[in-house]
């Protein structure tokens, strides 16, 4: 086996691959070969580093130099300067926007300082397509420990003691779930991994599967051992081709090494995993819907009980956990429940992965201990709001969650605290909004999503959400009346109380939380017919300020509908009856002569 002196780790997450990280790997390999260094330096395509904002990332190990926004043409310089001459390529290093200094090492970057990586422990370290690298980082050691030293009950007890709670949104204690599934006797039981990450703006499960697929396989095997199952299924979105590809490779390798299949690690324990593909239905994240979808049916939920732990896939006891939950399992077994339950808060142990996105400087994937405040996440790790604008709100929990404001920033993040302030943890999407975002439109955006994704089985969700959406359309269209606010509240409460599954029970949350936290904004839309964020087009008019206009005709040329008229070198004007309010003229004008009111 070749012993490499240096490793070049290139991010192979979806975001970085979209910015040509494949070509970077290709060029690096080619350049190393040109210089005859292919036996000394290894190029590894890893999973996501998390710092998507500055991707593609190339990290040099062992000196930990962290290059950002690398382009395929930068490769020659990295090899010649860094690898051959031992000098860092300063222009590709991360520049701390506050101190205006370059930071060479990821450990000293604000983005990474407060993070503790448990579920993401291997993402960005190992080649996800190589089982040996996972094993080198203690992979499958936990499974070995379970099979050789622990009884199934010991395993359940460890997980219970660790205090791990489901990371998919519900926050149900994982150990308890396993215990129930273990107690239900049956000739066949199933272990299911929910990888149907449907929350728009959330991509942590995908990153784990792309960066560390074996962690999930190992955890599923451990779960199977604890409850006496022999079959596992991973339900994954068809929209995640890269994650699917890496899972298939991982499953094949694990079978080859005898870590899946019969007589695992020389014991009589038997377990194998198959993939099932989703087909684009948000409701399938709900466990009963997911099970129906795996059975080849429409993904509609059914009433619980019976819970999947009693009657699940094909009517047999089934344990369903989410990807991130599973990713925590091997390390809990290895390091012990008492290591894990020291991290986090009293009621929520461990860490949580968040997908940080929206109007924030450092978009990316982060993992922080439970109890970290929203302020730390947004302003320290996230680097604050983009373009120096003012923070307005942060949305957590996706379409089931709510918008939180300035006054909630010091709330320590955990399941119960977020529910107490009117939002929820959800699967971990965190979208930051600035002063240019209209909160009524935001609520409308989420309702649009719910209306589209409602499966239609129960009427409160199917009809109610549609009605809620219509009321929001009316308000953002400038036709709102004060009675609409009461209508929204009444309907929201009915839908929450009477819907069949989690989708409908939480879908009004974006409305209720914006009504609570941004009531004035609703009033502006209804009474003054104004949208101060400038997002509701029906409430806006574009004007030319005569004194500023020099008659350059740039606006008239860019206007897609010919709504702007005027002679050269004379002030122009916009015909509001033709204007479609696309804003192209405002962006084009160099003289600040076009404003929107």
């Amino acid at each position: 086996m070749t012993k490499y002196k240096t490793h070049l780790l290139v991010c192979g997450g979806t975001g970085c691959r979209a910015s040509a990280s494949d070509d970077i790997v290709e060029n690096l390999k080619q350049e190393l070969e040109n210089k005859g260094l292919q036996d000394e330096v290894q190029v590894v395509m890893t999973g996501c580093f998390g710092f998507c904002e500055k991707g593609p990332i190339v990290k040099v190990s062992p000196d930990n130099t962290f290059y950002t926004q690398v382009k395929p043409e930068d490769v020659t310089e990295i090899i010649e300067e860094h690898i051959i001459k031992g000098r860092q390529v300063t222009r590709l290093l991360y520049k701390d926007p506050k101190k205006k200094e370059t930071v060479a090492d990821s450990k000293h970057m604000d983005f990474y300082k407060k993070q503790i990586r448990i579920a993401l422990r291997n993402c960005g370290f190992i080649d996800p397509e190589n089982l040996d690298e996972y094993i080198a980082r203690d992979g499958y050691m936990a499974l070995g420990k379970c099979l050789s030293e622990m009884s199934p009950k010991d395993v359940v007890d460890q997980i219970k003691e660790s205090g791990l709670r489901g990371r998919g949104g519900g926050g149900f204690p994982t150990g308890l779930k396993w215990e129930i599934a273990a107690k239900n006797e049956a000739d066949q039981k199933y272990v299911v991994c929910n990888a149907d990450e449907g929350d728009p703006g959330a991509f942590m499960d995908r990153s784990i599967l792309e960066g560390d697929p074996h962690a999930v396989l190992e955890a599923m095997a451990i779960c199977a051992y604890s409850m006496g199952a022999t079959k596992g299924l991973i339900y994954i979105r068809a929209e995640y081709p890269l994650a699917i590809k890496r899972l298939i490779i991982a499953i094949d390798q694990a079978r080859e090494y005898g870590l899946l299949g019969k007589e695992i690690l020389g014991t009589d324990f038997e377990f194998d995993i198959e993939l099932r593909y989703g087909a684009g239905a948000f409701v399938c994240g709900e466990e009963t819907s997911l099970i129906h979808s795996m059975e080849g049916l429409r993904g509609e939920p059914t009433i619980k009980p019976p819970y999947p732990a009693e009657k699940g896939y094909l009517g047999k006891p089934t344990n369903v956990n989410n990807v991130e939950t599973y990713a925590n399992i091997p390390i809990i077994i290895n390091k012990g429940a008492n290591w894990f339950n020291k991290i986090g808060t009293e009621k929520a142990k461990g860490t949580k992965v968040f997908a940080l996105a929206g109007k924030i400087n450092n978009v990316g994937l982060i993992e922080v201990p439970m109890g970290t405040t929203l302020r730390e996440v947004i302003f320290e790790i996230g680097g604050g709001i983009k373009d120096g604008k003012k923070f307005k709100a942060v949305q957590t929990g996706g379409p089931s969650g709510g918008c939180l404001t300035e006054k909630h920033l010091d709330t320590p993040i955990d399941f119960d605290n977020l529910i107490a302030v009117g939002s929820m943890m959800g699967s971990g999407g965190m979208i930051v909004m600035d002063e240019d975002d209209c909160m009524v439109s935001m609520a409308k955006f989420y309702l649009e999503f719910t209306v589209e994704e409602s499966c239609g089985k129960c009427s409160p969700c199917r009809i109610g959400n549609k009605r809620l959406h219509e009321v929001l359309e009316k308000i953002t269209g400038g036709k709102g009346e004060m009675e609409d606010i009461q209508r929204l509240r009444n309907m929201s409460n009915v839908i929450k109380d009477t819907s069949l599954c989690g989708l409908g029970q939480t879908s009004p949350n974006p409305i209720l939380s914006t009504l609570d936290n941004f009531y004035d904004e609703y009033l502006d839309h209804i009474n003054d017919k104004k949208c101060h964020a400038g997002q509701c087009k029906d409430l806006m008019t574009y004007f030319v300020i005569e004194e500023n206009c020099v008659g350059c005709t740039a606006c008239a040329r860019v206007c897609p509908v010919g709504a702007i008229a005027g002679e050269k070198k004379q002030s122009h004007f916009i015909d509001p009856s033709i204007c479609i309010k696309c804003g192209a003229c405002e962006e084009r004008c160099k003289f600040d002569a076009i404003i929107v009111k």
Partner: protein
Amino acid sequence: MSSIKVKIKEKDLNTIKEICKSFDNKPGELINVLHKTQEKFGYLPAEVQEIVAKELNMSVAKVYGVVTFYSFFTMTPKGKFPISICTGTACYVRGADNVLQEFKRQLEIEVGETTDDGKFSLSCLRCVGACGLAPVVLVGDKTYGRVSPEGVKEILEEYKEI
């Protein structure tokens, strides 16, 4: 069923039968069968659904129910260059809607439609997970990041001559 009437060729009929057979003609494998079939034909017209139903020994209504339930399955053929605009929250916040409107205007089609020359089709999808590049547009497998309404024309130009 609002789909185009197509005549299934003998060869295609056999392809569908083979796909069903590779899943042991089990009704429980319906979604996997549909995935494979759509991969082959690009879409799932009513006639194809009828064959699948027959092969898996289930009613056409059941198959149709599943096809229309899941947004991944489509009954209209996609364009040569399918354009998907990410309308996930991160992209929405960074102006995906303006980009979508511009595509609609330039191509003169609505979401879910295909241009008359069969070149472009337009669809929305929820989050490809490249939120760092928001707003994101996919043309086929190629990802375009930080797309602005002004950049739409440029993207379309790339495919005009192909």
